[in-house]
């Protein structure tokens, strides 16, 4: 069991003109499932390799528990790195497939068998231990792969996109299983993915990275409800948050012919900016009456159970302008959703509107309670 701390940890690749991981500060609790998420190239794998002791730390430090491991070789860190590849060896039994890395590490046979037995029990694979892997289902194969990591019983698990080559169905079921197992084992885990849904459904907390910089680290719900900046707001959530630019007036922000009410003190925080960005989650819209709400020309309607997704553009655009105009997405719970081509009003709860500075992307609105 261990905590993990990155303190101003920085990595600059030889020949690169800027850091790939820039002063990363991240405190991971004992037993916590921490997910690092961000677009390709944001520095996820580099951070993980720094923690594993594979990548040199050019500045700052890394701690596991109360040890400063910055200059410790990988083998002295008591971590297990789980790779993408999990080939199952056809001539070896399921038990040997789970335990062979222990054999390489010189763990004595009886202990090896015990650890494999324990892992198999945890994974529901006890009856398979002496079988060859050929008849295993996709899900069972995934569990053998997990068993391979579990038997190493490290202080910290590191996983770099372990699900990226699975088909959609297996990916969804495996991510639930990994999260559940991690809770049961209570081993501190750092998990890397580029997929925000995976991050949000698996992590106790999620660290969002972009261009080597930590944008925000928070619980999934806080990331969703209170994104610190425009990048996090747009990156987290699917369908994504609507980010709509509008002109600032005294009591709000103009979107088409409607003024979205925004408290003065919020507007005051954006001293010089004449235009600000509104962030509205699709599900916080409701259909409005008369002139109440943003006017939208509905382009496409998708019904989904009791709800409907509307996709449209702000009213008053020519057909040509619509093609390039920003799409607004709304999730409406209505038994009779509007038709394609209709013009509707989308009402907003002012409490649920985020306002972002265009200059530096930071959120200006107060943190909400949700």
């Amino acid at each position, binding site marked *: 069991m261990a905590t993990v701390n990155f303190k101003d940890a920085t990595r600059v690749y030889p020949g690169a003109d800027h850091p790939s991981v820039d002063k990363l500060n991240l405190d991971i609790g004992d037993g916590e499932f921490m997910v690092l998420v961000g677009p390709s190239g944001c520095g996820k794998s580099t951070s993980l390799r720094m923690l594993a002791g594979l*990548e040199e730390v050019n500045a700052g430090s890394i701690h596991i528990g109360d040890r400063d491991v910055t200059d410790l070789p990988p083998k002295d860190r008591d971590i297990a790195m789980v790779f993408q590849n999990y080939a199952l*060896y056809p001539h070896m039994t399921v038990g040997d497939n789970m335990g062979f890395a222990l054999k390489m590490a010189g763990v004595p046979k009886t202990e090896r068998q015990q650890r494999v037995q324990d892992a198999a029990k945890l994974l529901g694979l006890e009856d398979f231990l002496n079988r*060859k892997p*050929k008849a295993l289902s996709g899900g*069972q194969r995934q*569990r053998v792969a997990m068993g391979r990591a579990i038997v190493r019983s490290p202080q910290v698990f590191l996983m770099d996109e372990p699900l990226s080559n699975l088909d959609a169905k297996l990916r969804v*079921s495996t991510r639930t*299983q990994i999260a559940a197992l991690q809770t049961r084992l209570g081993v501190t885990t750092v998990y890397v993915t580029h997929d925000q849904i995976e991050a*949000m459904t698996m992590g106790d907390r999620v660290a969002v990275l972009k261009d080597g910089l930590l944008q925000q680290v928070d619980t999934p719900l806080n990331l969703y409800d209170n994104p610190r900046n425009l990048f996090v707001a747009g990156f987290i959530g699917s*369908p994504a948050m609507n980010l709509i630019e509008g002109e600032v007036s005294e009591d709000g922000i103009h979107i088409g012919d409607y003024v979205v009410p925004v408290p003065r003190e919020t507007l005051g925080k954006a001293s010089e900016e004449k235009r600000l960005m509104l962030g509205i989650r699709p599900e916080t819209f409701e259909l409005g009456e008369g002139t109440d709400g943003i006017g939208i020309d509905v382009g496409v309607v998708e019904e989904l159970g009791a709800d409907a997704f509307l996709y449209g553009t702000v009213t008053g655009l020519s057909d040509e302008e619509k093609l390039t105009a920003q799409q607004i997405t709304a999730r409406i719970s209505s038994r009779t959703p509007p038709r394609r081509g209709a013009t509707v009003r989308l009402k907003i709860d002012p409490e649920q509107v985020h306002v972002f500075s265009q200059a530096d992307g930071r959120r200006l609105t107060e943190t909400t309670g949700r």
Partner: protein
Amino acid sequence: MPRFLSAQPDARLITLPWDTPLADWPAEMLVALPRGISRHVVRFVRVGSEVYALKEVLEHLALHEYRLLRDLVRIDIPSVEANGVVLSRFDPDGEPLDPVLITKHLQFSLPYRSLFSRGVRQDTVNRLVDAMVVLLARLHLSGFLWGDVSLSNTLFRRDAGSFAAYLVDAETGELHESLSDGQREHDLSIARTNLFGEFCDLEAGGLLDQSLEPLILVETIENRYRELWGELTGVEEFDGSEMHRIESRVRRLNALGFDVAELDITTDFAGSTIRIQPKVVDAGHHSRRLLRLTGLDTEENQARRLLNDLDYYRARTDQQNADEAVVAHQWLTQLFEPVVSSVPPGMRAKLEPAEFYHEVLEHRWYSSERAGREIDVHDAAQSYISTVLHQLPDEALAVSTEDTLAGLANPFDPSMGFADADDGQPYDPWEDGDEAPAAGAEPAEDFLDIAALRARTDKPTLRS
């Protein structure tokens, strides 16, 4: 209709049954070739005279691998050649199927599963290991992080008594300007695990010679890699009176098959200490020279061998002062080409031309020793064909009916292991019972179910 993405489309591929999952393709279209184990469904198909390897894989990975394999060929790394990707596949019910990556089957390639088996000579093992290590070092020199170093992802070809290794699987690869030591260590740690697992698997299947020990093999590979990397990139410091060490370093690198394109040489103020470090080294020292002189594209050791023969020819015909290219052309038309075309058409799938020429040179050397006089190379070729070549197996495709495929549960897929009896399905509480920790409605794939997330967080849980 499926969509083809390809730089050199082969029209014969278009009519293949793309609306059928690859695992269900009719056996008469397929060729059962020995190959490495794989997670994806991989099959070899024959269209006309060409054999292709097909791999069914998620779209983003198929495109990534296609592009990377093409990059690797461009930077002259020995790898299989990507031909294209088939996208937008649907079965007759309109259900989507995963895309297929198409690569050309690498002719004369020998997958590892048949190479370490009973009776293999230690010397052969060393040469296989060296070939693997050279490939890894070349990849790393080029800034390629493999991410899945394994025997299954390596193919071997004969190379004048040695082997040359090729990369087959670039799915997890990343190409950078250059790699950090950490990235190389990452590859090495993956290599250790994968190679150990694969050797243990061969051992468990009775496919590893009894004298070979997985752990020792893995350690040998790692040590050799570090030695080679040190030679290729390491700093060497010596006294100003030992200037010859600059040339020795270059010669050693040439002997390993590398050219030095940039050597960094620094001296201290007094000029008494010299420090050298190769900055840019390129593999293929001999094969490039042979290609330039003769147009022959061969493996590195084959090239070395043919260049030696060329030198010998030049000395014997007393043309030391003649233009090298002119002599090379004579050698090609008077020796190499006639010898190689003397192989009867029915035996041409046994050895590659350059490998055949190498074997003839070997054969001539032994025959000359025995006869106590120099045997003519054309006569040696005839004798080699009638006494040795005719009994060698075909290796162009390595269609093997013997050992390698014998006993396999599925001749098209070694990942399924042997067809040994494992009857009945054991009890799986996660799939048969309702003990699975994941029990409950499964979330949709591309939709973030925030309501479920709130519900989960509102409940008191073990976490927090």
